[in-house]
């Protein structure tokens, strides 16, 4: 019953460092998403993917890159971390198709940029 798994769970970076957050899902879902949540805010969409090899920008894409080389994995990269990217990052997935298909979320990665 793994569902959506995010690694790492916590990370502290220095300004300018780079890192990659990994999201893996075992539900054979077509769609995958990266969100960030800041204090007192709802989740905001960073990037998303509608299938292997495809990515698209969400509401707040600047400073991030993503890749979906395998259907089950969705990677979020920070090339040069900035303090403004301190946040909790959530990955989600959902199956393809019209109709009511809720997104399933991982437990988040807490990232601090010093």
């Amino acid at each position, binding site marked *: 019953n793994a569902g*959506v798994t995010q690694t790492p769970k916590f990370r502290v970076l220095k300004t300018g460092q780079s890192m990659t957050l990994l999201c893996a899902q075992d539900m054979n879902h077509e*769609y995958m*998403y990266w*969100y960030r949540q800041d204090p*007192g*805010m*709802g*989740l*905001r*969409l960073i990037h*998303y993917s*509608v299938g292997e090899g495809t990515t698209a920008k*969400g*509401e707040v894409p600047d400073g991030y890159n993503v890749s979906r080389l395998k259907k089950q994995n969705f990677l979020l990269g920070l090339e040069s971390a900035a303090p403004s990217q301190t946040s909790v990052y*959530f990955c*989600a997935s*959902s199956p*393809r*198709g*019209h*109709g*009511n*298909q*809720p*997104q*399933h*979320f*991982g*437990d*988040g990665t807490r990232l601090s940029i010093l």
Partner: protein
Amino acid sequence: DQQVKQNSPSLSVQEGRISILNCDYTNSMFDYFLWYKKYPAEGPTFLISISSIKDKNEDGRFTVFLNKSAKHLSLHIVPSQPGDSAVYFCAATSYSGGGADGLTFGKGTHLIIQP
């Protein structure tokens, strides 16, 4: 420009009573609405949803009402239990894009169930 608004940051309800959480939206293209529940240090968990073709959806103790003309939805929890204490997020999306669009979230309401 917030498209999904939850104007009550917190709500305190006595155990056994009804909890009513409210949500307003501004984007007329939204046609699918969801409620998520979130405990600290965990990801949001899907609770209940409603399509714009309906005005009510019920699942056990949880009922969501949608008033399209007022662009308003509400989540009713009856009876409220201690395990319901969590942050509740209202979210919306448009399926005109084929169902792949991400969700637009409100800021959340922290529900506290008092014994």
